[in-house]
Each structure stands twice: as structure tokens, then as C-alpha cells.
């Protein structure tokens, strides 16, 4: 099918990556973290014009973050998911920015940084606060090991209201 | 014996020279104020004598020329404008003048203006015109060379054009004084009506009229020749600009009237007329119309406070030119009335600008804002001036604009009528731009300690504002004076009312009913709940909290949409045209010198040979 041809063409240009067709109009690639920039360059040449989102998946047990760059090609009308894996610890979760290839990436990188703490070198707006309010700025709330309920109790001081075993729920 | 006309003319110059010599802070201000007050006093005192005898004359002989001076109704009105606004400007300069250099030349320009208004023959008219131009040029030279050079070149070009025209007239008429010149032209007009051969041929008349038009057009700042005004008005001591734009531009207007007095009938018969307006007058009126629009639109797009008012004063002069251009007795009277009101509110505006710059030291709109609380007195004066310039009924601005509208539209001139209406809206527009940028909005932090106007400036502003209001409510006073110029009762009506037969305007009723309306509104206002004073940071900006450090105002580039709609027209600019001509002449001069005086003797020897050949050809 059409997607198969696209995947082979890209894999020929980027041997270091593996790619497969998940279903009609949906392809998937896995790329090592350090080669992400040139892979996105090849995608750009192969008419993947849009970067839709950079989503971060927190594999707590593997101790890794999985960054998924979701791209969309208007000409082929296919959606490509580029997966990479980076270590989970805050000081080691660092990625080069792809702002120069896809300008939209700047906001997605800030979003990932706000909620997961992934630091993208080269993105000058990294320190600029994005969505989170000042209180939650450094907490990276979407990480799996973030104790949401405890933080809510402390923040809104409604300690007595909840019963941990969730069977009598008092409004 | 020194006639009082001489005192009126030379008192300011004398005071200026004395102030320049005794360069002591206290004395020179006193001398200058006396210098400006003495002519004003004499003029007021001359009002009684004018009631009895038609005019006061005086003449002296100087190097073969017989200089005559006359004070009759028309020149008395213009001299009074010069007197009042000049006195106010001098009062203003007491606090803004830096050194005696400015005093000397400001008062010399006042002498020049008096001389121009009181002159009764062409040569003294030209001489005082030159003195006025030179003195005002020296005021600008001190601040900025390029602006002053542009101003000097254009106005000297105008002056020399006038000199050539005077020369041509002198060659044919043999005399300079207005009466004989007028008589000769009148006879000439009669001869041309009878069909016999005339003293001046058609294209000679065209040349004289063209030359006079350029000379007075430059000074009045009509459309193609207005480029000097914004730079000259902004690059000098601001309270002097009150006199510069309020009074000196009136010299240009007076010049246009001189054309009417001297050549009026002759040109009328020579070129015929469109509808009621003489064809040559229609040229002036049309130029005036374009000046209104160009001046107004450019004023709205300016970023510098002084430039805005410079362009606005050009566009207001456009009104006067339209009035004069239409040529009927009523329209000329309306034009003079607007000259008076323009001098009043424009003088007031420039004094306000002087106070702002004197206190804040800033001239760009983007660094100003929110001064209304800090300078309440100046703001009150500015409010009066804005109402007057925008032509809001109870003030003098409306009375004179109304007269011009009536006079022009009654003569069935649709295009001019449209231009006038457009002009009045533009006046409205750039005033609000000035008010918003300077008085309202969030105040930059460094302007927090600005004090209000110094005393002399405040008094000067007070005088002009008072006159604005008085002449607005009782327009009949001025109309009475103007009727004396033409002898017959053109604007009927009592002291409160102007009655033109086809239109009536009563200043008193309007004020009464406006006060009644405001009272009603005030009653409704005070019936409501008590009011709580709220700072600027408490305004609704989509709910976001507001801080004074980062002020969200569109003070810069206020009229961006207007600039986009006018983008096509803004590309043409006469300023760049004159710049290019100037640099072209300079390059030509450079190449010329390079080739002719190239320094080697052989070339010079060849020149000799060339001359010999010419002489041989000459027919030796």
C-alpha cells in the first residue's frame, strides 16, 4: 500500500530507525534519542509538513520517558508517530530542540517541560512559564510519582473531607 | 517728531537690542515685556483716533526711497493680532527663553511683522518682510541647521519673487506707494474693459500674480510650499512658535489681501470669474482647500507634539486662504475673522506645548501620558483651546468657521464646501490624538513629579483663553470691527448675534441652552449614588491585574488604520522633492567648479582664446 512505500523510502534514507505501518494512514517509527534531529529533517524532506504534538509517556517501571513526535503529511494524508526513549531522571531527561526544523515545536517543548520536566536545549523560552501557575511551577505534576491527592489536600486545606478508602465520600 | 507708528514698529527692536546688550537675567525680561507692551498700548490708544479720522499716516525718506506707513482699520486689526499674541508669546518666553540671543531675534521678528502690517508702500513692505524672515530664521538656526536652511531658502525664494514683482510694477508704474499703484492698476482695468491697449500685458499680469502668490504662499504655508513649516515650528523655542505660527503666518495672509487691494480689479477683469469668485481667487481658494486636507491628515499621523501643531496651523491657514480666495466681501471678512481666531487658539496651543516641554522635557508622544492630574491649569487651557480649534459652538473657533462655511457654500462652490467639512473633522481628529497621548492614559513613572505651568506662561495662556471664550460668546464685537474695514454693514446682528440674512448664529443663546443642558445632566448625575475615585490600575482589561510599570496604551502610532488607508497618497512628498533639487544644485556646482577652475594655466589660456574668437565673431 501507499504507507508501505512511504515507510520504505524513509527507512532507506534513515537506516538507524525502524518503521512499520500500523494501519491505513498511520505509520510509526522508533528512533534513538540522539538522531531525532536528522530524522525529523528527513521527514520534512519527505513532505511531512506539520508537527502536531510532542507527547511524553512516563514509563515509571522502565525508569524512562517516551517522547512521541506526532507528524502529519498533508500530501500523503498520513500520520507518523516518531517514538524515542530518554532516561526519566530530571537531570538526565534532556533533548535537543527541533525548533529550527518545525517552529511549532517550541510551544510543545515548553508544554513537555512544564508538565514532565524534559529540558530541551536551544529553546530560549524554556524558563518562560507556560500553563502552570506559580505554585505548581517546579512540581512537574504529570509525572507518575507525583502525589496528586496529598498536594490537593495541602493546597485547598480540605483535610477532613476525603476518606482514603473512598467508600463514604462527603461533599 | 517720532510718530506713534514709528514707536509701534521699532519699540520691540529697540527692546530686543537693549535686552541683548544688558544680558542680565532680570533686566532683559523686563525690557522685553515693556518692548512688547508699548506697541500694544499705542494700538489700543490708536483705536480712539481711528474712530475719528480714517487713518494715521507717516512717511520718511531713506536712500532715495520714500517710505510711507499707514494705520487704518484693516492694518489695525492685523496689528492687534500681532500685538496680543506677540505679547502673550513674549510673556511665555520669559520662562522658556534660554539666552539673550533669542530675545533679540524674537523681538526683531515682531518689529518685522508690525512693519509689514503698517507699511503703505511696496519697498518698506519688502524690507520689513525681509527683516521678519531673517529674524525668525535666526531663531531656528540656533536649534537646527538643516531645518533653518530649508526655511530660509524657501522664504528668501518667496521674498526675491516678490522683489522681482515689485521691480516689474515699479518699472511700469514708476512709484511704490499703494495708492498710486492701486490707481494705475484701476485705470488699467478700465482701459482693458474699454478694449484699448493696456499698460500690463496678459502674461505680465500672470507673472506678477504668480510671483506674489509664491511669495505669500511660502509664508502662509500653502500646499506645495508648506514643507518648511513643520521643521521650523518645531525646531525653535516653543513659546516663540506661538508668535511664529500665530502671527508671522498672518503676514502671508495679509499679503494675499494686498494682492486683492492692489491688483484685484485688474485681475478680475483680465481673467473673469467662476460663479461669483474671481478665477485668480479660485486658485488661492483651491490651494487653501488642499492645504487644509494635507495639513490635517499629516497632523494626525505625527509622532512629535510640535510637528502635530505645526501641521495643524498649516491646515488652519488653509481655511483663511479659502475665505480670501472666494473673494466676496463676506468671505474676506470671514477669513480675517478666522485669522483672529486662529491667532488666538494657535497661540494658546503653542504656549501649552511650551509648558509641557518646559516641564517634562519630552517631545515624543510615546514618552508622555496621564498629565491631566499633574497639570490641571494647563489642561483646562488645553480643553478651551481644543473646543475652540475643533469648532465647538460656544467658542470663537466655531463662529469664524461658521462664517467661512456660510460664505463659501452661499457662493455655490460644492468642491470647496466638501473640503471645508472634511477639514473640520480632521481638526477634531488630531486634537483627540493629542489629548489622548498627552493628557490621559497611564502615566510613565518618570513623569510623576511634573509641576504645573510657571506663572508668566500661565498668565499668557489665561489671556488668550479668556479672549477665546469672550469672542466666542459675543462674536458681534469682532464682526463690528470687521464691518468698519468694508465700510458697509456686511454682518448684521447685535453684539451677541451674527446675522447674514441666509443664516443666523447667536452665541449667547447657545451658551445659555448649553448651560441649561449641562445643568439637567448634572442634576441627573448628582441624583445617582456617591462616586468612588478609582486609580488607572483599576480598569477592566479583560480581568487581568494592571500595573503602572507596563502601560498598555496605543499612544504610539495612534492612527495606524488611517496610515494604511492613505498609504498610496503618503508616498508622494514635496519635502523629498525639494531635498533632491537642493542636492542636485550642489552637485552641479561641484562639477562646474571642478571643470572651470581646474587650476592649470593652459586651460585658462584657452579661455582667453575663446573670448578672442567671440569678439571676432562679434563683428570686428
Amino acid at each position, binding site marked *: 500500500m501507499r504507507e508501505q512505500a512511504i515507510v520504505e523510502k524513509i527507512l532507506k534514507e534513515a537506516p538507524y530507525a525502524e518503521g512499520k505501518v500500523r494501519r491505513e494512514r498511520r505509520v510509526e517509527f522508533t528512533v534513538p534519542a540522539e538522531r531525532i534531529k536528522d530524522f525529523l529533517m528527513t521527514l520534512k524532506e519527505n513532505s511531512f509538513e506539520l508537527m502536531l504534538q510532542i507527547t511524553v509517556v512516563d514509563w515509571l517501571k522502565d525508569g524512562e520517558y517516551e517522547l512521541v513526535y506526532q507528524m502529519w503529511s498533508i500530501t500523503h494524508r498520513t500520520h507518523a508517530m516518531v517514538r524515542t526513549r530518554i532516561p526519566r531522571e530530571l537531570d538526565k531527561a534532556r533533548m535537543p530542540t527541533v525548533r529550527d526544523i518545525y517552529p511549532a515545536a517550541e510551544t510543545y517543548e515548553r508544554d513537555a517541560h512544564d508538565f514532565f520536566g524534559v529540558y530541551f536545549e536551544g529553546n530560549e523560552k524554556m524558563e518562560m512559564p507556560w500553563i502552570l501557575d506559580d505554585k505548581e511551577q517546579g512540581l512537574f505534576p504529570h509525572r507518575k510519582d507525583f502525589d496528586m491527592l496529598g498536594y490537593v489536600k495541602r493546597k485547598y486545606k480540605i483535610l477532613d473531607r476525603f476518606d482514603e478508602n473512598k467508600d463514604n465520600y462527603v461533599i | 517728531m517720532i510718530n506713534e507708528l514709528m514707536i509701534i514698529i521699532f519699540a520691540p527692536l529697540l527692546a530686543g537690542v537693549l535686552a541683548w546688550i544688558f544680558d542680565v537675567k532680570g533686566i532683559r525680561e523686563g525690557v522685553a515685556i515693556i518692548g512688547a507692551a508699548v506697541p500694544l498700548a499705542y494700538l489700543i490708544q490708536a483705536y480712539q483716533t481711528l474712530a475719528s479720522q480714517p487713518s494715521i499716516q507717516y512717511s520718511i525718506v531713506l536712500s532715495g526711497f520714500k517710505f510711507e506707513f499707514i494705520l487704518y482699520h484693516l492694518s489695525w486689526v492685523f496689528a492687534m493680532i500681532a500685538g496680543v499674541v506677540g505679547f502673550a508669546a513674549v510673556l511665555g518666553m520669559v520662562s522658556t527663553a534660554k539666552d539673550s540671543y533669542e530675545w533679540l531675534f524674537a523681538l526683531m521678528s515682531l518689529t518685522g511683522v508690525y512693519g509689514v502690517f503698517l507699511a503703505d508702500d511696496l519697498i518698506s513692505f519688502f524690507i520689513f518682510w525681509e527683516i521678519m524672515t531673517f529674524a525668525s530664521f535666526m531663531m531656528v538656526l540656533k536649534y537646527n541647521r538643516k531645518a533653518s536652511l530649508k526655511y530660509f531658502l524657501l522664504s528668501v525664494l518667496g521674498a526675491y519673487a516678490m522683489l522681482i514683482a515689485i521691480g516689474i510694477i515699479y518699472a511700469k508704474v514708476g512709484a511704490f506707494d499703494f495708492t498710486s499703484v492701486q490707481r494705475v492698476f484701476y485705470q488699467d482695468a478700465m482701459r482693458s474693459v474699454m478694449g484699448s491697449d493696456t499698460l500690463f500685458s496678459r502674461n505680465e499680469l500672470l507673472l506678477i500674480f504668480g510671483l506674489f502668490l509664491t511669495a505669500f504662499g511660502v509664508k502662509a504655508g500653502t500646499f506645495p510650499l508648506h514643507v518648511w513649516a513643520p521643521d521650523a515650528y518645531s525646531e525653535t523655542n516653543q513659546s516663540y512658535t506661538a508668535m511664529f505660527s500665530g502671527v508671522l503666518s498672518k503676514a502671508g495672509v495679509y499679503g494675499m489681501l494686498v494682492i486683492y487691494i492692489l491688483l484685484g480689479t485688474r485681475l478680475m477683469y483680465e481673467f473673469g470669474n467662476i460663479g461669483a469668485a474671481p478665477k485668480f481667487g479660485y486658485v488661492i481658494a483651491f490651494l487653501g482647500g488642499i492645504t487644509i486636507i494635507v495639513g490635517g491628515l499629516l497632523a494626525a499621523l505625527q509622532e512629535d507634539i510640535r510637528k502635530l501643531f505645526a501641521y495643524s496651523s498649516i491646515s488652519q491657514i488653509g481655511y483663511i486662504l479659502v475665505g480670501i480666495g472666494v473673494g466676496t466681501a463676506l468671505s474676506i471678512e470671514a477669513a480675517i475673522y478666522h485669522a483672529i481666531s486662529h491667532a488666538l487658539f494657535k497661540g494658546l496651543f503653542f504656549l501649552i506645548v511650551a509648558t509641557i516641554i518646559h516641564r517634562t522635557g519630552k517631545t515624543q508622544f510615546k514618552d508622555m501620558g496621564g498629565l491631566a492630574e499633574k497639570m490641571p491649569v494647563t489642561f483646562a487651557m488645553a480643553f478651551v483651546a481644543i473646543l475652540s480649534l475643533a469648532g465647538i459652538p460656544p467658542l470663537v473657533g466655531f463662529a469664524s468657521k461658521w462664517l467661512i462655511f456660510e460664505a463659501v457654500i452661499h457662493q455655490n462652490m460644492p468642491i470647496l464646501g*466638501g473640503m471645508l467639512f472634511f477639514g473640520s473633522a480632521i481638526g477634531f481628529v488630531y486634537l483627540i490624538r493629542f489629548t489622548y497621548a498627552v493628557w490621559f492614559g497611564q502615566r510613565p513613572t518618570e513623569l510623576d513629579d511634573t509641576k504645573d505651568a510657571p506663572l508668566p506662561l500661565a498668565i499668557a495662556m489665561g489671556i488668550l483663553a479668556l479672549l477665546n471664550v469672550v469672542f466666542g460668546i459675543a462674536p458681534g464685537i469682532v464682526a463690528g470691527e470687521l464691518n468698519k474695514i468694508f465700510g458697509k454693514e456686511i454682518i448684521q446682528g447685535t453684539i451677541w448675534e451674527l446675522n447674514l440674512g441666509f443664516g*443666523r448664529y447667536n452665541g449667547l443663546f447657545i451658551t445659555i441652552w448649553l448651560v441649561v443642558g*449641562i445643568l439637567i445632566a448634572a442634576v441627573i448625575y448628582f441624583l445617582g449614588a456617591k462616586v*468612588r475615585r478609582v486609580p488607572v490600575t483599576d480598569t477592566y482589561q*479583560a480581568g487581568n491585574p494592571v500595573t503602572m510599570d507596563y502601560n498598555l496604551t496605543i499612544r504610539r502610532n495612534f492612527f495606524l488604520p488611517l496610515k494604511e488607508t492613505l498609504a498610496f497618497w503618503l508616498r508622494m512628498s514635496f519635502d523629498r522633492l525639494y531635498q533632491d533639487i537642493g542636492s542636485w544644485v550642489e552637485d552641479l556646482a561641484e562639477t562646474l567648479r571642478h571643470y572651470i577652475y581646474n587650476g592649470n594655466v593652459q586651460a585658462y589660456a584657452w579661455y582667453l582664446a575663446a573670448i578672442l574668437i567671440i569678439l571676432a565673431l562679434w563683428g570686428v
Partner: protein
Amino acid sequence: MMVIETALKALLILLYATFVGFMFMGIIRIVTARIHRRVGPPIYQPILDTIKLLSKKSSITHGLIYDFGIIYALGATILALMFIPLGGVSILRAYGDLILITFLLEIPMLGIMFAAMSSGNPWAGLGAQRALLTLLAIQVPLGFAIVALGEFYGTFSTYQIVMAQQSMGWSITSLPLLLAAVAYDLVLQAMFGKEPFDIMIAPGEISLGPMVEFGGKHMGILQIQHAIALFAETLFFSNIFLGGAVITAFASPIINTLATLVVLLIKQTAVLMVAIFIGAIFPRFTIDQAARFYWKWPTIIAAAGAILAAL
């Protein structure tokens, strides 16, 4: 004696104008609702709104000019009202001069803008800028229309124009003044602040522009001002273009004045309806589109009218 009589007449005109003005605002809301196939508020809704606004318990001010601007706007509208001939009742009818009334109808906008700008709110600044540009845009066709009128009738007093129309028939019957009337009607659209040209008080874009800072009683006074302005503008239009009303058929003068008021009312509502229909259909122009529109078609129409009138 004369003073009391004029005072009474002035009071009568004022009350009548405000009441009819509010009714006009009510009509506008009901007709627009009916066009949207909605039920629409009761006709006295504007009065209720004004009473609610005036009865607000707390009010704020941004300084003297913030209040004086509003009071000045209402005062100027009342002044303008007094000049326009209202059948037999008007007071300053003799001084009702075309140009004077045109200027007086524009002055309330100056007062509102002064008050809005002194509040320091950026929305108000933007609103003021757009209101100014709209004013600049409508001035050209308005000017030419007034010039056409002035030249056609040779006089500037509205009362004489009304009298002339009694004999010569309504002024829209003659071509030049018909063109002027069309242009003036488009200008009225912007003066009422109705849909196609109400960019200056665009609710969504700049949250009501100049009106953003006007709370309780300030907004109440502005509602009254808008009512009187509606009445005055429609009255002025019907006087100069639709022949005004001078009825002397009945015996007693009171019935005559009532008849003239009724006739005028009909003409005014007609003018209002035209404005409402245009308003309900068209989307809002941006400010430079509005300026370009006004400087193209209405100006050509009005200029043609003026030139024809001048011949």
C-alpha cells in the same frame, strides 16, 4: 412671562423627545428580534434599563473629566435638540442653522470620547481611535449633503427649508437632494452606531470600546443621551429631507401641534426602520473598510448631488 412660557415649552420638548427616544430604542430591539424570529423585549425595556442603571448603589469615577465628559455630551445633545424645528413647538427655531446642527450632533461623540479616554483603559483608547476614524469617514458625504442642501435652497435656516418644502414638495422629490438624502441616510447609519459601522463599540472585539468603563449612572446618562440623539437625528433628517410638518387645518393650535407631532413621528419611524433593516442584515465592517467605503460610494453620490444643486 415669556421666560416661563419658553421654559415650559423646553420641558415639554425634552420630555417628549426622551420618551419617544426610548420608544425608538425599544422599537429597534423589538424589530431586530422579530427579524431574528425571536420574541424580543417589551417596548419599554430601554426605560427599565436606564432606571436600573441610574439606581445602581455604587459608582466609580476616573477623575473630573470622566464625569464632565458625560455631562457635556448630554448637555450638547439637549442643546442640539432645542435647535431643530419640531412643528410649532420649537424654541430656537429661528437660529436653527444647518451647519450649526450638524456640528452639534457630532459634539456628544467628543464628550463621550473625552470621558472614555480619561479612564486610561486601552479598550477605550482603541474605541476612541475607531470612533474618530468613523467620524472622519462620514464627514465627507455629510459635508457634500449639507452643501447640496445649502445651495439648493439658498438658505441655511432649517425652518425656512421646511417652509420651502411645504410649497415645493418634499426635497427628496428633486434629484440633487435625493442623492444627498441617500448619502445622508448612509451617514445616519454610522451616527446611530448601527450594525455595519458600529466598529467603535464592537462588543466582542474591544468590549464596547469607549463604553467599557461606564458604570451605573454614567451609562444611564449615556442611555438618555442616545435616546435624545436618536430622536434629534431622525427629526433633523425628516425636517430637511422629508418636508417636516406644518399643519394649520385644525382650529385650535393644540390640535395642530399634535397633528404635526404625529406626522413627524411617522416620518421619524420610517427613517428609523430603514436604519434598523440595514443594521440587522449587514455584518460589521473593519475600520479601514468603513473608511474606504464612505470615501468611495456615498462621497460620489453626495458630490454629484452637490454639483447638480450648484448648477
